[in-house]
């Protein structure tokens, strides 16, 4: 049985305003964050992801409902006590200038050190553990401003880890990173959650990465009920389609990815499997055709192997050999064009 650390109970989040009624961003949020869990918070822009994270970190008061840390309302913790239990990584870039990486990570010990910020043996050990766990050992002596975006964000995660939190909350930490660094960062966070037995909650737009890496997902969308669960369960329940419903984008349950919803131009039968078959199917779908099994429709496309080379036959009214998918799409288009 997993131990719950952070709980939200029928929480309403938003902005209280002096003269008007409060502006509610989202309501009826109930979920539990457990030790050793890596959770991704997903939702379209404007769904209130940042507002929720601010409420969970105690910066913003809930409009109603409660946020409990170890069963105690988060608002009752003095700032320093909360900082010993909960740390954050933010989207904004940090301009720490010439601060050496190791000293920046050591800032995570802030709530534990005396007025002068001197590090005890225990503090130094925590800093070293954080540096090792995030794999930034080789950067330890370098000035922060000389690091790349990906390295800087890892240092900020090490700093948050040095705080020895029970909960780490990250607000879109991958925003400035390229794809390989995003993948690396998500794997790192998943590993940290499992190894350090802390709960990691991160908001992100990286749907397919989150599907692969996160233990649980929280889906927040304007006008839709909040849902949470194991990624695979949510896919099977069709939760993504309702959360991210849009005329232009469709969620594909088979691939776990979104694709642009293009106008359907008709059905094409495809015969062929393996890598070539998969990419042929992708090309046809992208061009707006519905791909069905062999013999179920006309025109048809057949993937054939000519020695080591791939070639295609497009059939219907005529039968045309094609040397590339570019040519396949052209021929299929002609098949349809001829009918109109």
């Amino acid at each position, binding site marked *: 049985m997993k131990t719950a650390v952070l709980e939200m109970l029928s929480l309403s989040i938003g902005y209280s305003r002096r003269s008007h009624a409060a502006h509610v961003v989202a309501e009826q949020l109930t979920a539990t964050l457990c030790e050793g869990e890596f959770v991704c918070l997903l939702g379209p822009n404007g769904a209130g992801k940042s507002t929720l994270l601010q409420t969970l970190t105690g910066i913003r008061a809930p409009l109603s409902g409660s946020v409990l840390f170890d069963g105690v309302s988060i608002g009752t913790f003095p700032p320093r006590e909360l*900082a010993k239990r909960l*740390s*954050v990584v933010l989207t904004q870039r940090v301009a*720490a*200038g*010439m*601060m*050496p990486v190791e000293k*920046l990570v050591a800032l995570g010990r802030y709530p534990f050190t005396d007025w002068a910020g001197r590090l005890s043996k225990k503090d130094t050990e925590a800093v070293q553990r954080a540096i090792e766990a995030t794999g930034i050992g080789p950067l330890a002596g370098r*000035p922060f401003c000389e690091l790349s975006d990906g390295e800087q964000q890892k240092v900020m995660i090490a700093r948050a880890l040095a705080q020895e939190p029970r909960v780490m909350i990250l607000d879109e930490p991958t925003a400035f990173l390229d794809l390989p660094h995003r993948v690396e960062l998500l794997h790192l966070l998943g590993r940290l959650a499992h190894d350090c037995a802390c709960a990691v909650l991160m908001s992100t737009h990286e749907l397919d990465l989150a599907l692969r890496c996160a233990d649980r997902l929280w889906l927040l969308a304007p006008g839709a009920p909040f849902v949470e669960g194991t990624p695979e369960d949510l896919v099977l329940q069709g939760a993504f389609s309702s959360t991210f419903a849009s005329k232009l984008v469709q969620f594909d349950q088979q691939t776990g990815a979104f694709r642009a919803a293009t106008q359907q131009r008709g059905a094409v039968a495809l015969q062929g499997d393996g890598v070539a078959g998969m990419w042929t199917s992708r090309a046809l779908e992208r061009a707006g055709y519905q791909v069905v099994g062999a013999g179920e429709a006309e025109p048809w496309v057949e993937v054939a192997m000519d020695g080591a080379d791939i070639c295609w036959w497009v059939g219907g009214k005529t039968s045309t050999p094609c040397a590339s998918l570019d040519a396949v799409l052209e021929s299929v288009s002609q098949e349809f064009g001829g009918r109109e």
Partner: protein
Amino acid sequence: MSQSLKFSTLALTLAVVFVLELSLGSVMIPLKTVISILAGGQDSGESWRQIILLFRLPRAVTAILAGAALGVAGLEMQTLFRNPLVEPYILGVSSGASLGVALVVMVTDGLGWNLLLERAGIMGSTALVVAATLGSLAVLSVVLSFARKVESNITLLIVGLMFGYIASSLVSIMMQFSVEHQMQRFITWTFGSFGSVTWQQMEIFAPTLAVGILLAWILAKPLNAFLLGDGYARSMGVNVRRVRFWIIASSALLAGTVTAYCGPIAFLGIAVPHLCRLLLKTSDHRTLVPAVVLMGATLALFADRVAMVPGSQIALPLNAVTSLIGAPVVVAVILKRRHVMEAGA
């Protein structure tokens, strides 16, 4: 070079510049004599003793304290606003002081009140000090009351800047209606000088600056947290508004006091923190505060020595010298290490 070696070099340079300040001038006094007079020796001529103990020593001590204070105040402001071009006067402290001085020099003089003040024994430099102190206190109290209520640092920065504009427009209105010798006196004050603090005034000047610098030293830990921005600082348990209040109080106390006694000294507050960051390759305030004290003191002494043009009767405006030496140094430093600009602090 290790950090402690760099600190020793800074301290040694300060000592050398200090002795040179006492030795060089319109009258050249041999180094050996300077040291023996400082050690309390009586064997040298009475006039040399007078020059050193009554004129050059208070001047040197003033320069040391003022340079250190402006450096520390600039460091605090650059970190608080995470902006490398911010100076200690950014929140309008010196504008308030100049308004106070302008009022004393132009209005009281124009209305013939200066006789009254003179009889009360507070004319001359003391009157200017009192006026400048009151002026900067007025601006400071307004800015601090905003600091308690306002969330955003940028709002605070704009409030400070606007007060600066209001003060300088009031000053220019007064200048419009003042006579030549009043204008001359005011402009001389804006040139800045370390030479007008007497031993008696030093009894207030020195302890006030010591308190301000001590406060900055105590604030070194939260200042480090502020390097990461308000959001991170708050997440580490820093009470952002309270700490910001004390940072502003310390910086304004330092800048306001220096302005009151020495006039608005330019450049030191911006340049000294940058030079220290480059020299020590760190943004850690526990290292930077003492380094800025040493570097600020050294540069202030050096600028004063150059302004007095050794071996002649000429004295250049101190602000002209600090800017002439300082601006190219800052440009060179920034061109060489471009990310100092993004260093924020």
